[in-house]
């Protein structure tokens, strides 16, 4: 049984991405008790799935590691993975959260030696790589995973693979008898940091994400660059493994569109500018990048980054929202069709690979969290209309980059601290 001590002076943080980790750390370092819930087997969220991050183009591992170190060092943070909130009842300063914890089938004795994974035969789509490539039925979600503890996929239970994993483990860490648990926690305030998910590219019919192998999304593109990713870090296209030297980016794929997401996802212009440097990194002067855009929104100080990319002769900017994509059957090249706004020229441009700069939507619709938590038109938490002590942090509250997510999460932590401070004053 998971024993978690919590009182109505405890802050519950839901979601263990960069925002949730930040909020938890800020609150704990101010002396508050925090329970940090993460639905997946490890912390880090979508930042850990990026190859590099703008504007400085460093690898996310480094920023992540500092945060993990702070979390490990802090006795006030209790991390629960594979944990989801099923209900929150009560009022500010006095909530009961019902939490469902799924079994990992691996206990704290695990040394992440990997013997179980080697023993198991079954493979499944690798969710860390957005379904590209496979992983074993016993796995560590990524090399950086925290906690560094393997997971047994429930789908191998009852098959010979489960027993193989168990007998491969020298540390007695595989426990096939683990059961789902439900725990009720008393908490005073909640920071909601469940982040975002990429808009479903299949819904953008004219771009043929569902029909053409060489049309991928920006989140998948990040995974291609990762040395531990599905291609071992090679920038090659899915249909035939050919080097993707001529790459097109389509901006506002699913955003700023009343047929899809109404809002501007705010980070995708910067993401494509950043990803143009990936193509240059791999193929130097053989690289050709085309960015099809409505307008480039490199907000405030990112303007410098934009200027730098603009100066690159190998990166072309085409002011036009692509109308549709067809495929050249012989070469597998996607062909982009449209009309540009600077002169109204019609184009039919073939590329090796097309990357959809996919929009961001909240991973949890805020209006479903509990009554009193209000969503804006896009489903993000609207803090001004919310009457509960449930504070949105990071991409749960808006489409934000890491820098702004962290600022936003710090603000949410401060709001939560104020609520539990009121509780402790009342009880003193």
């Amino acid at each position, binding site marked *: 049984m998971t024993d978690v001590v919590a009182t109505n002076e405890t802050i519950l943080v839901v979601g263990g991405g960069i925002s949730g980790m930040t909020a938890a750390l800020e609150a704990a370092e101010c002396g508050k008790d925090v329970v940090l819930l993460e639905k997946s087997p490890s912390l880090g969220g979508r930042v850990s799935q990026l190859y590099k991050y703008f504007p400085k183009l460093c690898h996310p591992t480094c920023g992540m590691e500092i945060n993990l170190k702070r979390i490990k060092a802090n006795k006030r943070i209790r991390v629960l993975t594979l944990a989801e909130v099923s209900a929150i009842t009560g009022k500010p300063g006095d909530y009961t959260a019902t939490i469902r914890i799924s079994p990992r089938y691996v206990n704290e004795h695990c040394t992440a030696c990997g013997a179980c994974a080697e023993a198991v035969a079954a493979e499944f789509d690798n969710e860390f790589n957005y379904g590209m490539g496979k992983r074993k039925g016993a796995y560590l979600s990524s090399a950086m995973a925290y906690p560094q503890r393997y997971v047994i996929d429930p789908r191998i239970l009852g098959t010979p693979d489960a027993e193989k994993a168990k007998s491969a483990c020298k540390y007695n860490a595989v426990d096939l008898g683990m059961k789902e648990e439900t725990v009720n926690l008393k908490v005073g305030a909640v920071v909601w940091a469940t982040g975002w998910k990429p808009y479903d590219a299949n819904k953008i019919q*004219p771009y043929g994400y569902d029909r053409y192998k060489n049309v991928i999304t920006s989140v998948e593109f990040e995974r291609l660059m990762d040395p531990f990713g599905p291609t071992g870090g090679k920038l090659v296209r899915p249909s035939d493994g050919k080097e993707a030297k001529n790459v097109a980016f389509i901006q*506002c794929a699913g955003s*700023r*569109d*009343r*047929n*899809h997401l109404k809002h501007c996802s705010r980070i995708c212009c910067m993401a494509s500018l950043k990803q143009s440097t990936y193509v240059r990194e791999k193929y130097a002067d053989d690289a050709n990048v085309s960015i099809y855009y*409505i307008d480039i929104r490199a907000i405030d100080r990112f303007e410098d980054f934009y200027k730098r990319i603009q100066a690159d002769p190998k990166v072309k900017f085409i*002011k*036009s*929202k*692509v*109308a*549709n994509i067809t495929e050249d059957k012989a070469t597998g090249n996607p062909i982009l*069709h*449209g*009309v*540009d*706004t600077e002169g*109204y020229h*019609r184009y039919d441009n073939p590329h090796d690979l097309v990357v959809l700069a996919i929009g961001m939507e909240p991973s949890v619709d805020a209006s479903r969290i509990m009554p009193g938590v209000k969503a804006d038109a896009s489903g993000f938490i609207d803090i001004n209309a919310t009457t509960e002590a449930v504070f949105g942090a990071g991409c749960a509250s808006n489409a934000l980059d890491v820098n702004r997510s962290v600022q936003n999460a710090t603000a949410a932590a401060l709001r939560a601290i104020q609520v539990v401070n009121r509780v402790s004053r009342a009880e003193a």
Partner: protein
Amino acid sequence: MTDLNKVMVEKYRNDFLKEVEANVEEGNWVKMCMQCGVCSGSCPLGPHWEHPPQEIFMMIRAGKRDEVLRSESMWMCTSCYNCIVRCPRELPITHIMHGLANYAHRLGIAPKLNPTRRFAKMFWNNITAGGRVNELKLSVGLYFMDGFASGIKKGLEMLPVGLGMLKTGRLNPFGLFSGGHCKGAGDIRKMIKKAKEIEDKRKGFAA
């Protein structure tokens, strides 16, 4: 210049966008266009337009009144609705195209020889005369639109189709001679006349 055209030029001076908003069906949507280009790229007639819809909307904002209203472009629209379903801003592009064409026609400055305009006129006269379309008269009229010889040629080309329609009772062979009017055609004509009066008054077209 026709009188109505003169009146409108006087009334709106340099503000063509305002003129479009006030007088063209769905014209108030024009300013919502963000110039993304999806409509132009999606239009099946795309390569044949002089000015695709996106460009027309920009020309309206730029005050290019004559170029827009005298253009053949909006007469090319086939109402396929491709642009409407894809426009990220949900502009009723098809309707605006027809609205512009109709407005230019009312002003008397639409291109005289444009075949769509001539067909539309023929269709209108045909349907308002009898309260329903007399298909035989309409198609014969259409074939002979460009003169007698070309009419005979087109008629002969279409003969098998016509005969097939006759056989299945889809075409009334006496339509050419009888009126083929519906019951109460006179009342329909009165209603249309009244509707036109109301519309003219609302749009300030009334003489």
